[in-house]
């Protein structure tokens, strides 16, 4: 399954090559033009195959980011332990004891932690800080790593993609690393298999997790009339004591963004998404506002502005190793975005 391959591929922000190569092969026969820009975005353009009723076809950009959060080696101590820092936003508590792969050689390692036997009585509650952690690749000394690991090498979580629930009428939950946003990338590949009445610019972006950087330059070059971003999003739906927001819930279908910290979704596009969902009988939810950020934050502000919207598959445990999402939600997200794109026309951008 492409989603599984993408999940297991190594692609921390700034080093997305392995993911890009996988995606290049997946889309090269689906696109009329394919290119990689200076920062590393993969841009696949599928021209309009249905005739546009009025004038020039719209330029529609749909983006999903290839990069995952991870770590970077900042130092190698004499004992061969690797000091490291996060790349993208990661809570230090979720990294303890996780298996990782390091650098070019994909060396396996583990992020060590102090066994409970050795902790002081009040240590278990103490805050975890990256500067106190180290990656153990089993080296005897710094010399063992000469030429194999360097400062600046990137490190990714290591995890096999797995299907948790095969019951066809259930959640069909899957678990893997980097579903944020390899799930979006897999959906974008699917979208390239349909004919539209507009020119589709499918952009697999780089460096979203460190500042929406790839999306910004790709959007500037493409100058789209409208943009959609496919993401996975925060899901805080496990039982809790206080009656506050879950942001989104697994099993409630694709999440439509109203606004997050980086963008106010264009209201015309939100209305189009909602109308499409209702007419196609697709269950959907709204993502609770003012949380998180996506490539749309950068895209909507390029040039003289791009109306933009975000559609996401809810995903538990984002920015940690084992992301969990429902393939039922994922399939409905695809159904929603595809149906919306098939309805999209210039009249939807009128005020």
């Amino acid at each position, binding site marked *: 399954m492409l989603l599984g391959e993408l999940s297991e591929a190594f692609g921390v922000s700034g080093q997305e090559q392995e993911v890009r190569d996988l995606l290049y092969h997946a889309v090269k026969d689906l696109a009329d033009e394919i290119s990689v820009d200076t920062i590393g975005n993969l841009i696949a353009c599928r021209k309009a195959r249905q005739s546009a009723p009025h004038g020039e076809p719209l330029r529609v950009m749909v983006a999903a980011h290839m990069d995952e959060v991870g770590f970077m080696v900042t130092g190698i101590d004499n004992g061969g332990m690797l000091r490291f820092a996060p790349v993208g936003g990661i809570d230090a508590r979720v990294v303890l004891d996780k298996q990782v792969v390091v650098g070019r050689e994909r060396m396996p390692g583990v992020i060590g932690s102090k066994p409970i036997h050795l902790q002081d009585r009040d240590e278990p509650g103490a805050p975890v800080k990256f500067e106190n952690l180290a990656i153990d690749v089993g080296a005897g000394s710094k010399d063992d790593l000469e030429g194999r690991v360097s400062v600046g090498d990137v490190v990714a979580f290591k995890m096999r993609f797995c299907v948790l629930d095969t019951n066809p009428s259930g959640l069909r939950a899957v678990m893997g690393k980097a579903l944020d946003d390899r799930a979006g990338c897999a959906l974008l590949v699917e979208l390239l298999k349909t004919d539209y009445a507009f020119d589709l610019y499918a952009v697999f972006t780089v460096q979203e997790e460190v500042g929406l950087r790839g999306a910004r330059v790709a959007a500037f070059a493409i100058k789209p009339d409208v943009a959609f971003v496919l993401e996975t999003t925060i899901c805080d739906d496990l039982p809790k004591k206080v009656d*506050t927001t879950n942001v989104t819930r697994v099993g409630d279908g694709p999440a439509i963004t109203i606004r997050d910290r980086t963008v106010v979704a264009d209201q015309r596009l939100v209305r189009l998404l909602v109308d499409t969902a209702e007419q196609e009988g697709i269950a959907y939810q709204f993502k*609770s*506002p*003012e949380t998180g950020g996506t490539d749309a934050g950068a895209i*909507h502000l390029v040039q003289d*502005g791009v109306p933009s919207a975000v559609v996401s598959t809810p995903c538990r445990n984002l920015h940690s190793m084992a992301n969990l999402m429902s393939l039922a939600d994922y399939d409905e997200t695809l159904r929603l975005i595809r149906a919306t794109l098939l309805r999209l026309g210039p009249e939807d951008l009128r005020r």
Partner: protein
Amino acid sequence: MKELLRKLTETYGPSGSEEQIRAVISAELDGLVDSYSVDALGNLIAFKRGTGSGKKVMLAAHMDEIGIIVTHVDKKGFLRFLPVGGIDPLTLLGGRVAFANGLSGVIGVEKLESRKEAPGIDKFYLDVGATSKEDCPVRVGDTAVFTRPLAEVGSRLIAKAMDDRAGCVVLLEVLRQLNDSPHDVYAVFTVQEEIGLRGAQTSAFGIAPELALAVDVTTTGDTPEARVMAVSLGEGPAIKVKDSGMLAHAGVKDLLIRTAEREGIPYQLEVLGGGTTDAMAMQVTRSGIPTGVVSIPCRYVHTNSEVVERTDVENAVRLLVAVLGGPIAL
């Protein structure tokens, strides 16, 4: 002018949902300008052609106001919310808000364990009179703004959203009074200033002006135990030197000062420690735009009772009309 200010300040228009205020301002533009349009983000761009011998000038005043956005409807129909724009939680206590359709809400707060610390935003909730999630007329994502009618005390005007409906009124009055200007003037009523100067960024890119001027409120230093600031109510519009986001273009600043002195318009010089305006975004658009700001002194900014002095607003209009009335050399 008071009635225009009343109409604008009492209209609903939080950042990202400016449709209503845009409609009200559009209605005021008929007869004042050659054309107007709405761009991709919702900025209202009004164009008044000049006689042709001048520059392409952009004026910016933001239409959006601060507010709150509903993040959760709880089982009993109470709402949790987050701010839209910069809101000090202290200003929420006992507040009243209104949604786009006019529905009112009252801001409540959880019991406070300690009265020494200001409660965080997560301790507040909104009460719209619902009794359950099912009968609550408000949904996640709905936005609301403070509600207060405009009040007049002598020559002082008090309202919510003086920031920056006062600036919008200045732009409208400038358009009304400007005749035979050499310059092509783009008066932009921007969106989403309070959440990141977003409308100004994209509209400035689209217009690509040769000179940009923002018109926004600024704080004053003339209230008890205020932060040190040389701006006071009633001493004239403030010509911005610096704020936390930009240093005014020296040529533009000097042009404003020269013009004020020549015309006998009272003015002040402004250095603002915390806060910025659309000018910050306009200044660094494309390859850069000479940018300045004419500020309207305002007490209690980002509360529901912002106070301006009528003469400061009128003198801001006079200053801009005088600057745009003749040739500009920077």
